[in-house]
């Protein structure tokens, strides 16, 4: 259990990472390192997008499944790692020097 906690801490402390959000299958954020309003916004929007992306992948081939989703924007990159019950979202600024 603590291994996972440490892993999350490591990710949070990694270069350029702005924040991490853990969202459950209903779109409710469980754990976050960002402020409340941002978290709620990200959780709701990303959760829908992730489900849609997964639906796309699986519709094409039901034996396939979504591993991860990256949304790169001008300012930063949103990385989404979906799971059966949870979705992990991480916002990183990749070119942060």
């Amino acid at each position: 259990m603590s291994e996972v906690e440490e892993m999350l801490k490591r990710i949070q402390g990694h270069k350029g990472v702005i924040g991490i959000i853990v969202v459950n299958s209903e779109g409710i954020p469980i754990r976050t390192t960002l402020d409340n309003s941002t978290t709620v916004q990200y959780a709701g929007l990303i959760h829908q997008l992730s489900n849609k992306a997964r639906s796309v992948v699986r519709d094409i081939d039901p034996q396939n499944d979504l591993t991860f989703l990256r949304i790169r924007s001008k300012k930063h990159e949103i990385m989404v790692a979906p799971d059966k019950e949870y979705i992990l979202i991480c916002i990183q600024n990749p070119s942060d020097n």
Partner: protein
Amino acid sequence: MPVAAKPALKKPVDTMSSQGLASKKASKGGKGKTPRGKDMDDMSEMGEVGDEWMQQKTMVKPDDQLELTEQEMKEEFTRILTANNPHAPQNIVRFSFKEKVFKQVASVDQLAIHFTLDGNMLHKDSDEARRQMARGGLAEAAPSEPAVAEGEEKAEPAAEGGEGEAKPEGEGGEAEKEEGATQTAPAAKDGSKKLTNQFNFSERASQTFNNPYRERGTQTEPPPRVNFSSTANQWEIYDAYAEDIQRQEKSKEKKGFRGQQESTSRKKISAIESQGDDISRIEKPAKILERMVNQNTYDDIAQDFKYWEDVSDEYREQEGTLLPLWKFSYEKSKRLAVTSICWDPKYRDLLAVGHGSYDFLKQTRGLICLYSLKNPSFPEFIYNTETGVMCLDIHPAYPHLVAVGFYDGSVGVFSLTEKLQEPMYKCTAKGGKHTDPVWEVKWQKDDLDNNMNFFSIGGDGRVVSWTLVKNELLCTDVILLKLDESPADGADGTQLFTLGCGTAFDFHKQTDYLFLVGTEEGKIHKCSKAYSSQFLDTFDAHHMAVHSVRWNTFHPKIFLSCSADWTVKIWEHTSNMPLFTFDLGSSVGDVAWAPYSSTVFAAVTSDGKVHVFDLNVNKYEALCEQVVVTKKKTKLTHIEFNPNYPMIIVGDDRGYVTSLKLSPNLRKIPKEKKGVEAAKGPEVEIAKMDKLLSLVREPPPEKK
């Protein structure tokens, strides 16, 4: 009412009339109008009655009567007669399930039913009537007709007789006749019923007072509603089927499974697991996320790893470069030297690093870290050990088993799938562990009993074979590294051998039993697993300890050795003299052959340099000599080529493992002719080597 009123009124009128008369007469003065008086009396009686009545009418005024002004009194109010039912409710509200609100019903039923009577007349041609008649029977129809006729006849004389009688009676008679007829008809049907007298029979009906109906209704609260939505995609259907199949398989397993208790206990365990801490269930996505973050951070390195080819190599024929890629380190390993590195044979991105200390005086704990190329910032697996790890090897067939040799002479086998910090198997002091540090371990093929086994070589001069039997390690001495040919005489007359110190060994790729042993004295022994007391051959290779011996990847006769005496030597195992000797200017920590070419090898030295040679290109010099460490005074301890990718990893004594990409010049596969693609394969490599050797070798004697 007026008829009744009059006698009632008369009494009071009489009393009052006398008073009134008296008063009136008194008032009028009695003008002798007696006739009028009489009339007046008569009339006045009436008039008085009327007066009194009227007076009574006007005099009474209730207290709470509205005081209205004259204008208001003249105001006209229109009154409209409507057909509305005063008893009907005016506002009925119903819950609309469609709109989920309470809504007023627009029009309320104004129909008021005062009396209903259900009739029981049937049309004689209707089904029911026919059925009844059928029940009664057609035979009955015949008597009913004459009965009716009789009735009519009776009625006629009755009617005739009763002409003078009042009409209602005649009508009554007719009614009676009808009744009689209907009565006689059923009577005739039954035959047993008493015939009622049609003249005297009268029916009386009365109606009770019907209570007025009131309608009452109740409405329950609308049930709570929840929105439900779902999709039916191809994958959802697939999932449902997959689940179903799983369930079926499980039920089949349970049927075949004898221990039902175990299955229930499994259920309990699985239930507990599912209720377990939430955080642990996001382990997998957290891992993926970590790798993604790392990929972003080290994006340029990853791109280089995949795609970078040093373009300048085209202009430099005999030179190559090493491009530094990732650097693996773990915070707790920074004090420890890298004592061993090994690539995982199955998972192409996994590498194992053993940490320990080469310093005899500073012996602390050890560490085993397994890194993945996908996550260079943190190891995938970490094992802490009490003593320094000197060597490790990953089983080629079972990549979760790692054999480890320790500084204290013991060996152990770690299993990566078990979440233990302890080795799964560990040898004991009784079990024949080495009395000096174990310098190398190597997995071998499974023995005849299908038990896994590995070899280890230690500083105590023993080469030991360890077999994994159930939970133990059984050891067998394979060979003892005796120094002298002749044994010294011991006290009891037994023969004592002085044992050398083994520092390196390597097994032949093709012939299983053949292996080489390097010693601290600088000798290399060629041994066979079959002969435990004698060496097949000995090479006086170096002046100082041999750090590493390696058989060539392709050519069966060539091997490399490196030593602390700054040299790297290439040998053919049939000859006593080295074919090539290279002086690298500093103690050589390790050498390795390239997996893709029989003529390429690399060496690392304690001055932090990596030397890469390609004998096909340049027999005397390295193609590349590059310092790969950032701090001076860092010694490089080990080197390994990646079997799949063009990269090498180098371990140093500060606990870092650096990965480097080989430039194209260093991975040349020579072309036979221009335009023809070079054939790949061991045969070609061997031929290449042979060609090379023929240039170097002295003309071989006839035997060889």
